[in-house]
């Protein structure tokens, strides 16, 4: 497989800083924190049970009978002692699992309680990207984006989950547990972030060829930043001002791109692929796979199957002098 350039070496995030950016134990929201605490409690109790069992097992391997003892002979005292010990052990096991069940149920009550929030999103899973629609009581304020979710810090956000084709699963570990997106059903999940930051997630239910590259990014920001972002997203694409990008737009509109993609404010109105109205403002393209740079945009357009084999985007034939303006135009859609 050929690649235009070693994109993945361009990881801007310093390696140390992203160690936990998709980790269930790096909790950045109330739900994930409850779950992480629960995990440690379970781990402590269960590790103790394991250790105790193993100590008794090792002790049991000492030889207590004489070599010539009759294997069928039993000592009633020993039998009784062992029966009592085992009964106590089974009783303790029962108490342990019942308490863990109770703990689990109590946590469930807290975790799945719906808090009232101002913001509701609809996320639709597609092979292999996430369509994100921000709902609003005013129809003109409703907009659609892809693979990148912005949320205000400290507020619960309700996400409705639907699937466009097969089953997917929405999972942003540092915010909360996962929930499946199932065709013909609607599930819901609530997320909340404590502090501004980037929280990565990815599809957790096997959904075909590119299940591995179905990432998404949750960006938590302050209320003001979020509102500013949202206002920009609602607006249509600004027409390019320089001739170079203008040419890029013409190329875009004359190619098959428009059959699938939408750029609001132009004639491109395709609905089956990610909305590109503000694609330049998103940090990643190809569902969390490539940083949004001109080079990566060009590479993705020229050879999507080299980067994500099996993806639904076709490779578009472009003349050499068309690539640069097109990539520049898309990158300029902030």
């Amino acid at each position, binding site marked *: 497989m050929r690649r235009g350039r070693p994109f*993945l070496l361009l990881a801007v*995030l310093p390696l140390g800083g992203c160690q936990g950016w998709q980790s269930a134990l790096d909790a950045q929201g109330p739900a994930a924190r409850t779950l992480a605490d629960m995990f440690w409690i379970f781990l402590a109790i*269960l*590790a103790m049970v394991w250790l105790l069992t193993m100590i008794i097992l090792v002790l049991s391997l000492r030889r207590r009978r004489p070599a010539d003892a009759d294997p*069928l002979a039993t000592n009633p005292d020993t039998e009784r002692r*062992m*029966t009592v010990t085992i009964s106590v052990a089974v009783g303790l096991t029962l108490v342990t699992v019942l308490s863990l069940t109770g703990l689990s149920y109590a946590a469930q009550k807290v975790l799945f309680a719906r808090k009232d929030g101002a913001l509701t999103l609809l996320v639709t899973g597609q092979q292999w990207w996430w369509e994100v629609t921000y709902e609003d009581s005013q129809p003109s304020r409703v907009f659609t984006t892809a693979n990148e979710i912005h949320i205000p810090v400290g507020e619960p956000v309700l996400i409705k989950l639907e699937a466009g084709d097969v089953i997917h699963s929405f999972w942003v570990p540092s915010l*909360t547990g996962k929930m499946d997106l199932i065709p013909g059903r609607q599930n819901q999940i609530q997320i909340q972030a404590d502090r501004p930051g980037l929280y*990565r997630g990815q599809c*957790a239910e096997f959904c075909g060829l590119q299940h591995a590259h179905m990432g998404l990014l949750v960006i938590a920001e302050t209320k003001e930043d979020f509102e500013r972002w949202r206002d920009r997203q609602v607006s249509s694409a600004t027409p390019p001002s320089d001739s170079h990008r203008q040419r890029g737009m013409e190329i875009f509109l004359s190619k098959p791109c428009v059959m699938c993609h939408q750029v609001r404010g132009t004639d491109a109105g395709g609905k089956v692929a990610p909305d590109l109205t503000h694609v330049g403002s998103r940090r990643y393209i190809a569902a969390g796979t490539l940083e949004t740079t001109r080079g990566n945009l060009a590479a993705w357009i020229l050879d999507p199957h080299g980067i994500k084999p099996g993806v639904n985007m076709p490779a578009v034939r472009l003349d050499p002098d068309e690539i640069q303006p097109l990539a520049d135009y898309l990158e300029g859609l902030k």
Partner: protein
Amino acid sequence: MSPDELRDDQVDGPELTARLAKTWGTDKGIIGALSTVDHKVIGRRFIATAILFLFLGGLSAILMRMQLALPENRLMGPDFYNQLFTMHGTTMMFLFGVPIGEAFAVYLVPLMVGTRNIAFPRLNAYAYYVYVFGGLLIWVAFVLNIGPDVGWFAYVPLSGPEYSPGKRADFWAQMITFTEVSGIAVAISVIVTVFKFRAPGMTLDRIPLFVWAELINSFVIIFALPAVVTASATLMMDRLVGTHFFNPAEGGDALLYQHLFWFFGHPEVYIIFLPATGWVSAIVVTFSRRQAFGYIALVLSLIATGFLSFGLWVHHMFTTGLPQLGASFFTASSMLIAIPNGIQIFCWIATLWDGRPVFRTPLLFIVGFFFIFVAGGLSGIMLASVPLDTQVHDTFFVVAHFHYVLIGGNVFPLIGAVYYWFPKFTGRMMSERLGKWHFWLAFIGFNATFFPMHILGLMGMPRRVYTYLPEMGWGSLNLFTSLGAALFFASFVLFLYNIVSSARRGAVAGPNPWNAGTLEWASASPPRPQNFDRIPVVTNREPLWAHRDDLPVVAGLSVENREQLVTTVTDARADLRETTPEPSIWPFIAAIATAILFIGSMFTPWALVWGSVPLALALMGWFWPKPSTEDER
């Protein structure tokens, strides 16, 4: 039957042995080999085939670990990787996990209950051939690059007609049908053997624990497999004839498939684990030099496990958005299964505690089983909790968990069982020195492979991904895991070498090299076609410990005909003499006809109609009336 028929109270010694061997023997040549109904011949093939599939499944795992060793590795594409993990799961579950337990039952149960052949020996032979054809079907498809690629679970709609065009998913669904037929047939044979063919005096509380385990297991198989037959058959109908069972647009339901699949899928893991409890019981008792502590508790735990295993399938579906209260019921029932499993573990430890453990290779692997299986069981408690499961479900944490319980709970006891019964199967001992090396290599390799996966899952690595981005920070643990997998695989190569070299050059084993107490050790090693010259009478749970040199026997069975003793179900009083079928080629032909019908029905529903004609002809040959030698009393 004629009154002048020779009976085993009229001859004795070598002459009796030779005559019985002639009556019960298998003919020479290829036709003889395909006609045989000897449970030991079929059982040997069954075990060898299942272990071959274990190696094939292991090879596919090694290829996957090579691909995952480095981020964005370009060794293979997603298409091939998806086929690999599908083949790995499917092979390990359907072609190794379930059959290996049944294979051991086919070989050992008749010996352990003291009879000469399994009930329905022709059905048993047929079941083996059907299983082989099912395994061949899917592996040939894989080699031709048309193997299934939707996972061993084949969730709809991904496996449905719209998102999996072609025949890939059909190969998977039809392979299920093959293994179903085979599994249910063997289960029926085992149940009837245990109920009706026990040696006189083997009352219910004298049945060896291994036989109990296989009996309960057979019942679980009979009740669980129809659910997956329904799932795979309705999936094929959706794909082939345009039904809409799972199509939400037409009123179907994608979750219905998951319920059907897991209603089988969870009992399935107990179907894999229950026979292993039998191996553990047998080995712990023999190498503790003490009868099992808490026999009744162990048997009741087996039965409880069998029942409870049907009550917790929903814990595979905690993230599908089911009602919360219902889900927490399944939390409780999933955790409760820890009780019978705990009782078994405690009873085995008590047996060792009061015994005099002999540290030979089989016992080493059982100690390994305790370490690994208990750890896996405890991570299972985490998964049973609905909230915790939302974080770890479908991640590498789950992969780690079920490899701990399946490899710890099935493969380690299996290796112990192979070391333990190898002298009975072949008449030679396996190398003890290699066995020690094998154990440590397997134990360290296993933990190096699977322990880091817990951490990877918590770090956010989902299952079933063919690659991952370097910036995710999963690279070093994956590399470590892949190196561990190489070590673990090496242990299996050593195992194979030990098997092959010991079969040719191992020390000759007597009938009872471990000084064990159950009946299979009363027969020669390897057992003669008739198993026992005279049917033993059982007075104790460990007959060979109770009667070291003078096992009491029954006399009066025919020497010239294949006659078996039928006993009553609960207290095993001698009841009838019954002849058991002679060898026949028809089961093999019927299996071929079945294969034609099943494979044809992947392409056209009419195959069910026209394919039934050759099958009916084969069954006519199979059941063609023969002059009866029965004498009813």
